[in-house]
């Protein structure tokens, strides 16, 4: 199930919230546990079993790691290693098996290896990372063992951040899993956040995404220099508003249920360096890799050479985490290169240079990176990059480009402004009274317009059905 759907907003959510606030406090977690599984199993019921398996394995590992770490740290460590192996094996098998199989088959003598056509279990990359953090945090003494199976299961499968993050670490929400105070202020701030996220996803991302669909599907002979830039800028905006909109909705829904999750995005496109960009983009993933990979590898404590190697490892993994395709690995390494260059030379220079230079450079790197991220093969990327650098077959600009540009000009303007904190800052400066009046009106407006777009989305007529 996804948040931006009629099913979620007008059936699932009212039922979940109503029961959650009607039942006695002690029934809240069991209720969440059940509805989490419904949410998860909606698209693929079989994978509920996978989710339950993951919950049970990590629950038991947590208990044993906690038990042994007091007197036999070696034993605790082997339990932990065993747990990590199982978690990663699950991720590898369900997410990457087909990629590995298809790659190995290219080697002469290994043609017998067959891909299995496994459907990716939704959210597996998010919840595997999330569950793995639990025994690690216990081993490190960062959090206590969760004895209550239901509470633990609620954490793993918590529907707001189950399928698209933020990736919460166990230690960050441990204290909220038992008793959660809830207040009208928190609930209302959740509503505001959810509405903003919904509008970002439905009104901006979905809308401008259509433009990228058009351009990414264009034949190389039609793709012009200007067109290729329109297309990739549209995608850059789409992915930001889609992803951060989803995170906003997750944070908002969390608050409606009394949880506080970490922030996941912080206006990444206003960054002045690639280093800063990654501190503002998908923060929870970066934090996870820093805490559980980069620092354990030695981080920057083992000399410059080792640090650069660590950066390469972390960014190769970060890239590969985004999808089962070698292009994602390259996309991660692409960022490793810029991060290393910045670390060694550029960052000082960027700090001294006028701000717009750093800004322009960062956006250019990010936008060019999305080509590698989003297209399926290196040959497609090659065609697209050629067009972007004026070497494509489509020429400089076509009349169709000007049609699309004028059609989407207002959307571009709205989206680009919404990438900056400008609107938020202006709103914050309004007098208290104006804020109190306008907030409910804006929420209602967002809900109404988004509902219109959601109802219309599956408008998929077969007009000759009755003719």
């Amino acid at each position, binding site marked *: 199930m996804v948040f931006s759907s009629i099913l979620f907003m*007008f059936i699932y*959510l009212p039922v979940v919230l109503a029961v959650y606030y009607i039942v006695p406090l002690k029934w809240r977690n069991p209720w969440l546990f059940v509805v989490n599984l419904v949410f998860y199993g909606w698209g693929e019921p079989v994978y509920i079993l996978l989710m339950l398996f993951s919950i049970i394995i990590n629950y038991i590992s947590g208990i044993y790691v906690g038990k042994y770490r007091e007197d036999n740290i070696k034993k605790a460590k082997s339990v932990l290693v065993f747990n990590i192996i199982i978690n990663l094996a699950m991720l590898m098998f369900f997410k990457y098996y087909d990629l590995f199989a298809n790659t190995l088959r290219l080697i002469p003598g290994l043609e017998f290896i067959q891909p299995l056509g496994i459907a990716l279990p939704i959210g597996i990359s998010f919840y595997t990372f999330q569950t793995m953090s639990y025994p690690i945090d216990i081993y490190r003494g960062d959090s206590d063992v969760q004895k209550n199976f239901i509470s633990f299961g609620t954490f793993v499968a918590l529907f707001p951040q189950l399928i698209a993050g933020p990736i919460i670490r166990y230690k960050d929400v441990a204290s909220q899993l038992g008793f959660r105070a809830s207040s009208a202020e928190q609930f209302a701030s959740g509503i*505001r956040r959810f509405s903003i996220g919904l509008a970002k996803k439905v009104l901006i991302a979905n809308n401008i995404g259509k433009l990228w669909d058009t351009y990414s599907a264009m034949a190389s002979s039609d793709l012009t220099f200007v067109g290729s830039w329109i297309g990739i800028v549209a995608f850059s905006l789409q992915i930001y508003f889609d992803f951060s909109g989803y995170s906003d909705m997750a944070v908002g829904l969390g608050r409606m249920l009394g949880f506080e999750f970490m922030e996941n995005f912080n206006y990444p496109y206003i960054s002045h360096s690639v280093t800063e960009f990654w501190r503002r983009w998908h923060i929870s993933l970066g934090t996870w890799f820093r805490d559980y990979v980069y620092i354990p590898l030695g981080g920057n404590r083992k000399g410059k050479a080792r640090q650069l190697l660590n950066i390469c490892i972390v960014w190769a993994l970060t890239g590969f985490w985004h999808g089962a395709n070698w292009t994602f690995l390259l996309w991660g390494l692409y960022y490793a290169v810029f991060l290393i260059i910045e670390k060694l030379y550029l960052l000082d220079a960027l700090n001294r240079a006028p701000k717009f230079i750093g800004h322009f450079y960062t956006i250019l790197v990010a936008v060019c990176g999305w080509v590698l991220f989003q297209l399926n093969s290196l040959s497609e990327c090659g065609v697209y990059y050629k067009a972007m650098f004026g070497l494509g077959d489509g020429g400089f600009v076509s009349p169709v480009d000007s049609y699309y540009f004028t059609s989407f000009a207002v959307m571009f303007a709205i989206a680009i402004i919404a990438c900056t904190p400008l609107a938020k800052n202006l709103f914050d400066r309004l007098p208290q009274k104006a804020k109190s009046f306008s907030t409910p009106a804006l929420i209602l407006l967002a*809900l109404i317009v988004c*509902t219109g777009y959601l109802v*219309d989305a*599956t*408008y998929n007529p077969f007009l000759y059905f*009755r003719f």
Partner: protein
Amino acid sequence: MTKRSSWIQIIIFTAFISVFFVINLILPDKGFSERENRELTKAPEFTLESLFSKKFGSKFESYTTDQFAFRDSWTTLKARCEFAVGKKENKGVYLCGNDTLIEGYKPPDKKQLDTNISAVKDFSENAGVPVYFALVPGNSEINSRLIPQNAPNSSQNEIIDYCYEKSGAKNIDIYSALADHADEYIFYRTDHHWTSLGAFYAYEKLMDSMGIAPAPLSSFSPVTVSDSFYGTIYSQSGISWVKPDTIEIFTEQDDTTEVMNYSGAEPSEGKLYDYAFLGKKDKYSMFMGGNTPLSTIKTKNTEAPSILIIRDSYVNSLIPFLQNDFSEIHVMDLRYYKVQLMTSTVTDYIKEHDIDEVLICYSVYNFGTDANVFMLR
């Protein structure tokens, strides 16, 4: 935020989602959507099998959007918002001047087009009677100047030229017949078909090509039979605020004209105009009562030649004009006449019914996409 403001936000949000939850629960499910001209999705039956095959989930989701309360108002709101932010189309339909809705033309699959045109060519060579070929361009070609500047809209005229060069038949230049009258009401503003006036100009050209003197426009007296027609493009577009179309008929069915439809097991009597359709959504089907696999029209002019028309739905509104010029008009729709053509051929049909001339008449759109033209043998 103050506590009071927080509560107002909570009430608005929870009221909004729960009110629609309840309304959707209470309101009975709808069947046919007049506006969209299609059956809305019904509640899927829950079985373990449908659940695990994932059919239940996706069907239930379309059910929730299809049956959402006040659906038509929501889709209108969405279309309005699209135009408000500077879009020039919704659902692939351009909103043009004078409340005209036009769908941009996309070039057809080359392979399908080539298959179809070579079927026409082979047929023209082997039919044994003169074969006329007419491709009808749509409003997106004739009135392309109304479409937003630079909007994607492929040329239908190029497709016509391409096909006419290869057809081997006597090609009829419908394009100029219509283009010469582009300013007149020759296409419905909300439907993909031509109006009766559009069909008249095509009739004129057709007669010229066949060497028959056409009846002049002044000899017909148009009668308006509906002023509330919303066509297929309207249904597709979500642009609900345009004014409806008017349907005119130019000539009544002659008392001596006999129409037979061969749709079911037994032939049944048909009509040139089935006025019952004027009370329904699909008002264009008033002409000939919609598409039939095969219809025959016999007139009083027994001395005149007989004609077989292989066609799509555009021809339905052309037929009334032909009453005075032919003894028999046989109208065959390859899309629905498939079964019979498995055991016999169109050429057999021509011999059997002593047909004098054949007209193949399709809209450019259908000719480029229809996968049944190969049965023309």
